[in-house]
């Protein structure tokens, strides 16, 4: 039955036990599943948590009509910048190339970015835009052709300070 197979959490909730179903248990499960392997060891990755397993597995949930799901441009990526207190979201589809994207990021987060070169990365400003791709690898923005980037980018992180310098010099 879909109920049992798809979501292990649910079955536990119906077990006979003291206490309300789903309170402590849920939190525990989420904390346990937050460890994920990244190829780059970045120090400030505390807030990295993997998506809870329930999100993509349940049929027909959340209850959004398939018509709406299919027609929604879900190409949002979260953008974070080291030191900035808030996350922003951008729709990659509205940019045609790296120049447009970087310009938009500069405006959004009020910084200027250095010159990009394939061999040397972003020189000059101590700001390094990176992104996480479909495989979970962290890459430098600009390394791959735009189309490949826009279809594989899952989130953006604009690094500043010591981490940025470390990454820059590693390239």
């Amino acid at each position: 039955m879909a109920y049992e197979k798809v979501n292990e959490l649910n079955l536990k909730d119906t077990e006979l036990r003291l206490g309300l179903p789903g309170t402590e248990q849920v939190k525990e499960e989420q904390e346990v599943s937050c460890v994920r392997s990244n190829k780059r060891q970045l120090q400030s990755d505390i807030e990295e948590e993997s998506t809870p397993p329930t999100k993509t597995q349940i049929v027909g949930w959340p209850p959004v009509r398939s018509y709406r799901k299919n027609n929604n441009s879900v190409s949002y990526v979260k953008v974070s910048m080291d030191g900035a207190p808030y996350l922003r979201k951008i729709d990659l589809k509205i940019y045609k190339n790296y120049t447009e994207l970087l310009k938009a990021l500069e405006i959004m987060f009020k910084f200027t970015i250095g010159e990009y070169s394939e061999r040397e990365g972003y020189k000059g400003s101590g700001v390094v835009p990176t992104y996480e791709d479909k495989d979970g690898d962290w890459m430098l923005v600009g390394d791959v052709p735009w189309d490949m980037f826009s279809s594989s980018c899952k989130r953006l992180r604009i690094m500043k300070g010591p981490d940025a310098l470390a990454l820059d010099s590693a390239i």
Partner: protein
Amino acid sequence: MDLRLPSKVLEHIFSFVDSNEDRNSVSLVCKSWYETERRTRKKIFVRNCYAVTPEAVARRFPEMRSLTLKGKPHFADYNLVPDGWGGYAWPWIEALAEKSPSLEELRLKRMVVTDECLEKIAASFKEFKALVLTSCEGFSTDGLAAIAVACSNLRELELRECIVEDLGGDWLSYFPETLTSLVSLDFSCLDSAVKLSDLERLVSRSPNLKSLKLNRAVSLEALGSLLRLAPQLVELGTGSFSDKLDQEAVSKLSQAFSELKQLKSLSGLWDVHPEYIPLLYSVCPRLTSLNLSYATVQMPDLVELLSRCSNLQKLWVMDLIEDKGLEAVASSCKELRELRVFPSGAEDLDETNVAMTEQGLVSVSEVCPNLESVLYFCVQFTNEALVTIARNRPNLKCFRLCVMEPFSPDHKTQKPLDEGFKAIVEGCKDLQRLSVSGLLTDKAFQYIGTHGKKIRMLSIAFAGESDLMLHHLLSGCESLNKLEIRDCPFGDTALLENAAKLETMRSLWMSSCFVSFGACKLLSQKMPKLNVEVIDEHPPETRPDSSPVERIYIYRTLAGPRLDMPEFVWTIHKNLEIGVSNLAIE
């Protein structure tokens, strides 16, 4: 002395009775009123196409001019009903073609409509004026061409979120030059581009055109020329709202928008490029309805736009609006009646900095006195917020909350959301539609059963602890008409104990619950006026009575078992040896 009013007088009096609810009451008074009423009713609503046969409807209402039919259960919208389940329009169209050839309007929702159906409509109903298909599927653009070419008095052709086999944009070209009666055209769900020149000619020869909803393939530039041809539009659905326009084109488009003096409703707005949002500013103050749910616009731009919409009554938007944006809506759009916030997919469940929370809805509820209908997708909620919303807005009629992670507790106290929903049903005495979510125990449903006396439609997912939940609802909610439940851990006892209640409701849907096959059989035997459908795509080899069923769909019917059941739908009528009569009740 005959004290009865002559039927001609009765007819005249009944012609002033518009609402079908009133007409239903009228027909219960006595035989003569029933007879007179049925001969004068023109608009018929059949909210479950399997509740009654088309022949019976045609026979009872000889003057039928408009028919509204609904097919699949609501949860079909979320892929919970397997393909091939049913909801076919053909038997209805075939019967009406013969028995009600004067039919003028057909409105179908969640039904399977084939090209054959559309061709039959085109060929059979000489006075046909309106075809509105909502969430339907099974037809192609060829069928549309058949309607376009033959229905010379066509006023309305609307395809709302249908799944259409798109064979190209030619269908539009089939509207003859002699067709000048169009009032409403909605082809927003089609993919292919129609020929712009044909569309322009159609629009320019339709002086009564009030509603035009384009598909995504219509460019922003093309929109400009269309608007200049139809400045009288009251409802507009744009196509794609991004383009490479030069200054001149932009100012021409801006001018075209400002000429739309009657425009009240705006939708479409796919791929909105922020640069073009100011084009809409001139129509904002007049708008009463704005659908931005496909517009990927960020909060600051949304606020700029919505701050100009002081007369807005209906707003559909994505959660990109964030709490901040909803606060701005609250202060700018004081006439707001209906708010729907859809998930954009940008809001993630593990995000530590969530930009749209319960606070957004609380702000709107605080300030907008007419807010009565809410659909709200979000990642977290609190009891406190629900209590506040209920206190602020006792006039709520429809409250649908979807906290996206199942079993989410109050994110501040970690308690279930029982008390919050209690406040909602206690405070909002006119609540007719409710969808609950988050962590809920049986208590929540006890409250709903105790206080939700006017609730007609109730949707539940991932909730409750035991059969008591269902029992509270079926025994307490007096006005309950439609109940749909998924992934809740119970079934049999409450269902059998409250079997009689099911005849007072239109339908009950339960999927991924613990309803046993034996209970389904028992219920079927007990209640012959119900169709108890067991829908199992993967039934076990043998079916012991204790085995749980995947889905159960129960509805009252005068038509008996349906004749179009696929393999995977079981009703007791398929097991004749159990001894239940399968004669249709006419």
